[in-house]
Structure formats: C-alpha cells, structure tokens
C-alpha cells in the first residue's frame, strides 16, 4: 500500500478539507449541547442504550439486573476449580492482608496498610502479570483534585455527581473529593513529578464535564509517573509481590467470610493457597471483554476477574449496565486501533471534524455524549472517513493544538501521543489523526462503602473493580483519584480490622463457589464456559483450527 506520510492516498483528500477549514475554525466556537439534546443523542446512539447488548443476570445478588452479555456470561459460568482440584489442607501463605491486583489501587492499599501498622511481610500483593502491568500505568490525561482558590471540593462533587448522571453513591463522591487534595500532597511527599508553572504551582487543565480546571498531569504520562513512583515506594518497604499469580477463586470460612484466595500461575498452571485475615480486591476493569465488539484501551489483564470472584462470594455489583466508551480511540493505523488518544488533545484545543472538514460537536461534552456524536457522524450521517482495513472514524484536528499554544506544545505536553503516531509515520503536529470510540472504563463494579468494604465480610475492594463512586459515568481524572482515595481507605480499614483481631474462622473452603455453580445449573444455564476469564485469546483462527492438544 502506498503511503503519503503515514496515510494512504484514499484519506488524503479529506485531510485537505480539514486543513482548508482550519483557519476559520480557529476563530469560531462550537456551542455546547443543551441537556435535552444531549439526552436524545445518548438514547439514539450510545451503545449502552441498545437493549440487544444486554440481558438480565439470572442468578446471584444482582438477579434481574441488566448487564452486558459478555459480563453476564462470565458471572453465570462455572468456576475453573472443581471439587478435588485443589488441596486446601496445605496452606502456602498464611498472612494478614492479601491484595489481589498489583495496579494502582492494590499498591496504594499496601502502602497505607503498612502506614496503619501492618508488617510489610504480613502483606502479599498477588498480580496477574508483573507489578504495574495495569490500566494504572496507561493513564495519560491527569488526576482531578480541587486545589485552586476558585475551586472547592463541593464544586468537584457537583461535577462528578452530574457527570455520573446523578446516580453515584453520594458518600463515596464526598470521600473522593474531600480526600483529593490530601492525596496530591501525599504524592508530592513520595516524589511524584506533576507538571508545574514557573511559580511552582501545579498546572491545571479542564477535562470533559469539569466546571473548573482541576486536572493535574505529568505530561501525558500521568498514570505511568504515578504508578512507577508508587511501585518504587512499595519496593522501599519491601512489601512482598507475587507476579504472574492470578486470583482464581476466593476462599471462605464456614460462615461465608472471605479468608484468602487460590492463586494460579498462568504459565505453569500451578496453584497456591493463601489464607489471609482480610482480602482486598484491586483487579481493575473489564475492557478486554470487548463489549459489543468494541476495541479497547485497556491492558491485557482487564478481564473482570474480580467481579466474578466477588459475585460468587455474595458481593453485590452496581451500575454494571453502564460502560464507558472513550470518544477518541485511534481508528488508524491498524496497529493502533483502540488505543487511547488522551482527552487532553481536545482540552488543548483540537476539534473533532468530519470527512468534509466540518466540526460537528463541542469538543468537551461528557464522554458518553461526545462518543455518541461520533457514532452518529459515522453511522447515521455518513460523514465518516474510511480506512483501508475497514474501520471508520472522524478526524481530531491535532495541529490546532500547536496553532493555539505555539510550536513545540505537542512535544512538550503530549509526548506519548506524538511518539505513538511517529512510530507509524504520522506527524500529529502537522496532520490530523483519525479517531472512533473505544471501550475504556468499567463505570460500575462491586458495591463498597466509604471504607472500601464490600457487603461480604472480610472482603474489601478498591479501584476500577468497585462501583458507586462514578455512578453511570466517570469523568476523566476521577479514576486515578479513585484508586488513590479508596485504595488508601480500604488498605487502612483492612489493617484496622486486622489489628483489632478480626479474622475468619478456621475453615478454608470453596463452598460459596460451588454453591453459585449449582445455582447456575438450577437456573438452567448450561454451556462449557468457565470463569474467571484471566486473559483474552487473540490467537489467529487459522492457527487455532490446526491445533492439536499435545502435551
């Protein structure tokens, strides 16, 4: 295929249209949608509003609630462990606090459990891949906190609650916004490098749905800078981490209190039994379920395992019917499809433009509204740009960022983005980039209280796996904040319980999982599927069709 600076000839004419209208667009401002218009757009185009994408859960605490098929399939699947597989009389680790998931939430929880008084070697972080191979590492845009004099926790509350369509649990939002400045202060003390102005104040930006500029960032490597410092701090304290150790099932005592977990190494398939006084789920989100066939921004291990495990143990989930599609996933080149184009590109001035060079939506509507407008432009109005491999998208006019803020701005502020496209010969400082919505965030999750307690005794949850903080829609910058605020709260609460002598009874069982499996069979659910999923399978069809099970 002949490429002209990264783009095939078929896309160049449309790029010329974008360039033609740029000067005029720099001078005009596209109006924000009225609330009723936004609502109509959502109803008609947002994937969440398609009834065929969901069904009611048939068993368990959320029986009757709607959720995406891909998730319900896993919640109703049989456990991977069957009676007799695992010798529960041999305990491999006997510890105070078991943390499942070594992303941001898990690491923060461990740090604060130590601060609260637990011995580091009485904690174990078990994680699927390596410590930090997680959605937390990938966040680009920033983290919200109401720090500036013209801003306040109450203002932050309003933004988050309205952004969540007034469905969030208010006590959780309050904790989120009230703890936020303290979290940033803690980060300063750990050595996190936020972007600052010459006077030494942290830089602030808008994000979709914010009424004040309160997005704090570290270039477009915010998540990476945070995660690598938190991980380094955990290494300072020598908190034990088991890598390549996936949680396969929780353990419960004779009365159903959570008592640890069975872990498995995905390469050797060997298991370990961990008994713990408290267990904290921090396994992150579910992007790799590819709900409704969408590509995703999420890391490889984002497969809803924590939801499945907690659900079998009796934990209630909430808001699972609402999925966040980020409006700007890369739609070209093929190698980048689904990858996130940070919202910061729009907050710095880039406008969404259709194939004719015309802007069709205000750039910073809430994410679900913005994504719906993109879908309408591509699939109803026919103003999309098609790629040679059969995807469609609209332009994000990235050169506007430099036109507004001066040359070099992209390299300074959006280095990760620029590098990503440069690798595939596209220069986003001079050429627009093609985008389409991508599956980004699990809005709902395990119901928790402000201390990260689930409704199951002995089980805590924090981070993307939990629900209620963001209601039906999370605003950008509130989930990095969420994993810090609730990682800390859950880590401390778990430590306090442990230090107060709270502990499960002597039995270590998988009864809850078998009971759930039986309930599924009773409900007439047949099928071979087992869960947790652990990893998606991307092997080629051709290769799979020739596979012989040998060793």
């Amino acid at each position, binding site marked *: 295929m002949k490429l002209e600076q990264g783009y095939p000839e078929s896309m160049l004419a449309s790029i010329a249209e974008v360039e033609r209208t740029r000067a005029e667009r720099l001078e005009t401002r596209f109006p924000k949608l009225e609330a009723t218009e936004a609502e109509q757009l959502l109803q008609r185009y947002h994937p969440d509003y398609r009834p065929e994408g969901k069904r009611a859960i048939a068993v368990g605490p959320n029986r009757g609630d709607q959720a995406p098929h891909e998730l319900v399939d896993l919640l109703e699947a049989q456990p991977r462990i069957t009676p007799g597989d695992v010798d529960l009389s041999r305990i491999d680790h006997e510890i105070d606090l078991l943390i499942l998931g070594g992303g941001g939430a898990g690491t923060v929880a461990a740090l604060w459990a130590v601060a609260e008084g637990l011995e580091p070697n009485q904690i174990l972080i078990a994680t699927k891949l390596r410590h930090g191979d997680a959605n937390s590492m990938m966040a680009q845009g920033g983290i919200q906190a109401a720090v500036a004099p013209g801003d306040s926790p109450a203002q932050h509350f309003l*933004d988050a609650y309205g952004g969540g369509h007034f469905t969030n649990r208010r006590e959780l939002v309050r904790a989120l916004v009230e703890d936020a400045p303290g979290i940033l202060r803690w980060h300063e003390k750990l050595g996190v490098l936020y972007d600052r102005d010459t006077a030494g104040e942290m830089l602030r930006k808008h994000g979709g749905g914010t009424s004040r500029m309160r997005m704090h960032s570290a270039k477009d490597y915010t998540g990476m800078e945070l995660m690598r410092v938190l991980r*380094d701090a955990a290494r300072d304290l020598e908190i034990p981490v088991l890598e*390549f150790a996936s949680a396969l099932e929780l353990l419960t005592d004779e009365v159903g209190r959570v008592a640890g977990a069975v872990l498995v190494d995905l390469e050797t398939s060997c298991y370990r039994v961990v008994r713990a006084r408290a267990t904290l789920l921090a396994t992150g989100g579910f992007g790799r379920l590819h709900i409704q066939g969408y590509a995703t921004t999420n890391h490889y291990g984002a497969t809803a395992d924590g939801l499945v495990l907690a659900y079998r143990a009796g934990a209630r989930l909430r808001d699972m019917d609402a999925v966040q599609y980020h409006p700007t996933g890369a739609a070209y080149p093929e190698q980048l499809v689904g990858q996130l184009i940070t919202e910061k590109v729009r907050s710095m001035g880039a406008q969404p433009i259709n194939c004719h060079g015309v802007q069709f939506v205000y750039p910073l509507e809430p994410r679900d509204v913005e994504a719906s407008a993109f879908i309408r432009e591509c699939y109803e109005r026919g103003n999309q740009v098609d790629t040679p491999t059969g995807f469609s998208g609209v332009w994000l006019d990235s050169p506007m960022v430099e036109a507004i803020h001066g040359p070099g701005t992209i390299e300074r502020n959006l280095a990760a983005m620029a590098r990503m496209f440069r690798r595939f010969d596209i220069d986003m400082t001079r050429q627009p980039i093609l985008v389409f919505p991508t599956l980004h965030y699990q809005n709902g999750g395990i119901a928790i209280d402000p201390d990260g307690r689930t409704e199951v005794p002995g089980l805590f949850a924090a981070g993307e796996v939990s629900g209620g903080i963001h209601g039906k829609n999370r605003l950008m910058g509130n989930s990095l904040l969420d994993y810090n605020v609730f990682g800390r709260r859950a880590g401390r609460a778990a430590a306090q319980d442990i230090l107060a002598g709270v502990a499960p009874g002597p039995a270590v069982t998988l009864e809850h999982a078998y009971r759930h499996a039986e309930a599924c069979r009773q409900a007439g659910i047949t099928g071979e599927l087992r869960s947790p999923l652990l990893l998606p399978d991307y*092997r080629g069809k051709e290769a799979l069709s020739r596979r012989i099970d040998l060793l």
Partner: protein
Amino acid sequence: MSLSELPDLPSPLVTIHILGRLVQVPEGLTLMKAMEYAGFRLVHGVGCRGGFCGSCGILYRMADDYKLRPALACQTTVAEGMYLARMPFVPTNRAHHDLTQVNLATTTTLLASRYPELARCVACNTCTKACPQELQVMDYVQFALRDDWAEVTRESFDCIQCGLCALRCPADIAQFQVAQLARRAHALHNVAPSPQLAARVASIKAGEHRPELERLLDMDVDGLRALHAAREIEEAS
C-alpha cells in the same frame, strides 16, 4: 460498527521467523499481534499493549543483516524477513534504598553509591540506540555519574522501564533503575511543594468545606440537577 482485534479483510502476507519457526502473517500487524496470529497465547512479555508498561521487549534481526535490534513488540510493525525472539523481562538489580532515610541536602553521591557500576560506563552509546522511547540514555547515565538529578529527570522522564538499554549494556548498568531513584530524589529535594495545595489540605483538615459538602449530601436530586446545570464554567487559560 464493531471493531475487532484483527481485521478479517484479506491482506498481503509477510514471511517472518518467530522463535525459529517460519510463519506467514498479514502485513501491518504489530509483532505482538503477529505472534498471536501465528498461534502463540502470550502470558509473559505482554502488558498494556499500548507502549506504556515496558513488558514487551523483544530482539529481532532482519534477513541478511548481522545487527540485533531491540524493540517493543506492541509498537513495531512486522516486516518481511524478520527473525524475532521474545524476551522475558530483564532481571535487573534495584539497589535497596529508602529515600526517607537519606539526607538529600548533603549527599553528592546518591546514585553512584547505590549503583557503583555506573562508573563502568564506557560511553559506547549502545543504550541510547536501544531505547524504544528514543531517550538519550547515555547522556542521563553521565548526568547520573555527577549526581545531577534534575538533568537525569529531564532526560529520563519518558522512560517506560522496559530494560532494553540494560539488556544491551556492556557494563551491566540498569540505567532505568538509576533514573527512577534520581527522579524521586529530584522531586523530593528540588521541587518545592505547592503552596495552594498545602493551603487547601489545611482548610479541609480544619473542616471548612464540610458544611457545603453536607448541604449537597442532603439535597434532593432536583436541587442538585439545578445546581449542576447552573454551574459557571471556568475560562480555559
């Protein structure tokens, strides 16, 4: 409107070697997707799939070329005649340190004392050539030798800790580990805490925002809707 991981459209094939075996894969795939296409189910050497986590370092060589080239499997496109080998992560040493126990104001050898192998750098620039983030790795190693944390920070900020530099270094220096320590030292010692932030933390501690928050907690949803709709939006600067 569905976007799957791999296109179903027929595309021209390229011939490559993966861990010694000859395979044909569609052109335009990343090395990671090419391995999967060929039947590998990846468990290690894969993380974010987006160029941020540094877990997917690989080595490859082109046909008729002697050069071994390091790359990120998730950020590199397959090309005809590639020979590629997957890597585990690079098991580098992280020197033990607890920055709260160090007097950053007086030390001038923080990095060299924790990583004495820094002195063995032969300035061959191999690390710089290996870096998929195109960082000037050798330069930051030189700054590290002088304990210049600010400069190491500037040069190393975009490091994704993939370890490819360390893998290729003849002096066995773990450049990215050194850089991590330098950045934290820089942040703690050279960056003054934000005054606004300190003030806000204090006002929260003093309970100043509590009444306003509690008013919102108790308000009916319609009241909150109205407040939300009436928000003034701060002008972007």
